[in-house]
């Protein structure tokens, strides 16, 4: 086993890249970059994509893929706001209404993921095809619910939930208000911790690695491979539901035609940049988290340096390619 610095770069390159970019920002933007508020935004801006990317890590680790998460997010969000408004109209307290919206969104997400998983694991249709179908179908369902447009929440506390969180002690922004760690940010980190735990410390995690690395050997080793795969899609679905309701709360509405567009690409990009192998069998949650932050940092930089937003896609594309090429470096003798 030759490791050396190339191997290290392949394993921790994404972390090195993040530190480098961070340093560049500190040197060129100094104060304004290091402000607590900016740093908080850096992590929370893409928390929705981050929550999805954590679930996507499991799916990709087992040599699957889910292209339907963006559409699913719109569908779950639409259900969430409809449930919220109905609860409100029925005279429920705001807190209860929000709770129901969260539960409904996660349930619908889990059911959608379950449907994907059944078609993939038991129907034995390629994940790419099943979730491509999902990409079309879930968007359509969202549009039907929203009659082709936006669904607005009637509950103002919903948005408070979106902007609420835990205030940081001692730190304030320029206006003198405390800096709040949003729920979405905390939930993202909590979900990542939970997933990390599942992956590294439970049989489920070990089974995912086995299924991804060699599905036949896993099946011969008394592992119920179909159920493992089904669970990864269901788990991802539930997380999409969670991200959907957080996103809707922030906007206080769901634009059924536009919300979640390209989220599947961002999530997959973060997972891959983070060092999870698309061939399956190898995955790491911390890598995905770093991947999400890295992508956000790049977008953040381009805004700060006033680069035309039209160029952003090109830069992201380049980053994804470079990340994958670097990680492949040490695996040539596989």
């Amino acid at each position, binding site marked *: 086993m030759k490791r050396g610095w190339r191997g290290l770069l392949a394993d921790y390159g994404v972390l090195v890249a993040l530190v480098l970019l961070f340093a560049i920002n500190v040197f060129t933007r100094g104060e304004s970059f290091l402000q607590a508020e900016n740093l908080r935004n850096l992590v929370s801006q893409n928390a929705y994509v981050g929550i999805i990317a954590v679930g996507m890590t499991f799916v990709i680790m087992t040599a699957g893929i889910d292209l339907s998460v963006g559409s699913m997010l719109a569908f779950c969000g639409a259900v969430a706001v409809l449930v919220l408004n109905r609860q409100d109209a029925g005279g429920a307290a705001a807190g209860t209404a929000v709770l129901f919206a969260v539960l409904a969104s996660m349930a619908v997400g889990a059911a959608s993921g379950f449907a994907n998983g059944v078609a993939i694991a038991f129907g034995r249709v390629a994940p790419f095809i099943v979730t491509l179908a999902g990409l079309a179908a879930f968007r359509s369902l969202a549009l039907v619910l929203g009659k082709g447009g936006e669904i607005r929440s009637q509950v103002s506390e919903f948005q408070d939930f979106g902007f609420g969180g835990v205030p940081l002690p001692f730190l304030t922004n320029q206006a003198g208000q405390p800096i709040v760690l949003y729920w979405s940010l905390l939930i993202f980190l909590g979900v990542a911790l939970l997933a990390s735990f599942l992956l590294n410390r439970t049989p489920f995690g070990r089974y995912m690695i086995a299924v991804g690395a060699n599905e036949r050997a896993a099946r*011969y080793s008394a592992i119920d491979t179909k159920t493992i795969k089904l669970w990864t899609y269901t788990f991802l679905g539930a997380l999409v539901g969670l991200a959907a309701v957080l996103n809707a709360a922030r906007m206080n509405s769901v634009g059924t035609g536009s919300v979640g567009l390209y989220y599947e690409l961002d999530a997959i990009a973060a997972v891959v940049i983070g060092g999870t192998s698309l061939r399956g069998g190898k995955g790491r949650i911390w890598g995905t988290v770093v991947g999400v932050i890295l992508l956000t940092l790049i977008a953040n930089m381009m805004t700060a340096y006033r680069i035309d937003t039209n160029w952003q896609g090109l830069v992201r594309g380049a980053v994804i390619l470079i990340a994958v090429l670097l990680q492949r470096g040490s695996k040539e003798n596989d």
Partner: protein
Amino acid sequence: MVMDFPAVRALDGVSVSFEPGEVHGIVGENGAGKSTLMRILAGLQLPTSGEIWHGDDSMRLVELHGVRDALKLGIAMIHQELNLVDPLTVAENVWLGREPRSTGLIRKGRMRELTESYLDQVGARFGPDDTVGSLSLAQKQLVEIAKALSQEASILIMDEPTSVLSEQETASLFALIERLKERGVSVAYISHRLAEVEQVCDRVTVLRDGKLIAMLERGMASQSEMAALMVGRELGDMFPAKREVAESPPALRALEVSDGERVFGASLEVRPHEVVGLAGLIGSGRTEFAEILVGVRPLASGRIERQGAPVRIGSAKQAARHRVAYVSEDRKDTGLVLAMDTIENITLANLRSYARPLIDRGSEREAAGQWVRRLDIRVGDLRAPTLYLSGGNQQKVSVAKWLELEPKVLILDEPTRGVDVGAKREMYGLIQELASSGMACIVISSELPELLGLCHRVLVMRHGRIVGELAGDEMTEEAIMVLAAGVEAA
């Protein structure tokens, strides 16, 4: 023609020569340096030092920087894993990348004609237009040899050529080697099967730990001599004595089991303390029968009983619950997750007992350590992927994984394939030990001496059916072959 290369690293100062029209056997345990030697000859690897000389009348110093260089000198390798493209035809495979052309277009007629003549030379009974995917492994091997001949190869390197062949196919391969010899082709013959080496080779080079131990002429190279030289010590009897099996109800019983595809109405029973052999040619349905018993192949009809009670085994997981384990023949594909380390592989089938509910890494490591000591698995780092282990050690990890489950019925499919003599003997000892501790064992093997040495009874399969059962004095290699091949004894 002669070749010399003193002082190579995985090889230490080994010199070998290949004369025209000679079959030169290369034997040694796994890791002895056979493969390295052959890779250097085939141009796949450069020696760190040493020289290769080649020529007909006058010898010339040559350098082999790639397969192309080797081919130019007429050195071609027939790989253990055959390198053919399944969807293409035989002719297309033989001429892949060097198709006869005129004005840029492939001359299909010419290609077919040439292929036919080479197929003729190797005695193939299929045509140039057959798809390679439709051929048996033995036939594919003939395609590889035809391809080598079409490249005007004068030195053929055969790496374990018989490991995928039945006895009959092996015999016809030897006949072909004999014909090639007469044409002046020399063959470098690598094999673990010493009986075959003794039969087919004119000279035998024995390697151990990268060093040349001996060069034996035909007649000197007896199996026991080669085995002793390979391991560097005298091997006692390969097989420990069999123990008597007490009368008791069967631990596992299969009644008229079919999958509707490869296995038709096969029955079997095995008692505790008993070792039952399952013989048959490649493709006779032995492995498929075992796969039905452990639920990884669907049971279309028939019945499986454990300790007299009918059981439903629809997956390896259910089989594990009934304490029936299957050590598969194919370590790479179904036996191990090669990307995982030794610990993870050993506990994979029994992981639940280490999860309370979180995986207890400490006791996992401890258990794996115990197996490593008990089965003498040579592993440097328990945390390194099993990919880096030798065949014999991979096999032991695979066995440990199933013993970890404390099975009552253990099915071993080709337990010593690709494994060296020393490890084979250990495996035989282990199987005997497990049986005497009360396990019911089923051993599937293509090596008849193995079945005779280990088993109390042998069932023979042909075309997916059990065609006979032999025990005691009737158990001979001939009797098994007669049943397996389906020919009437004269």
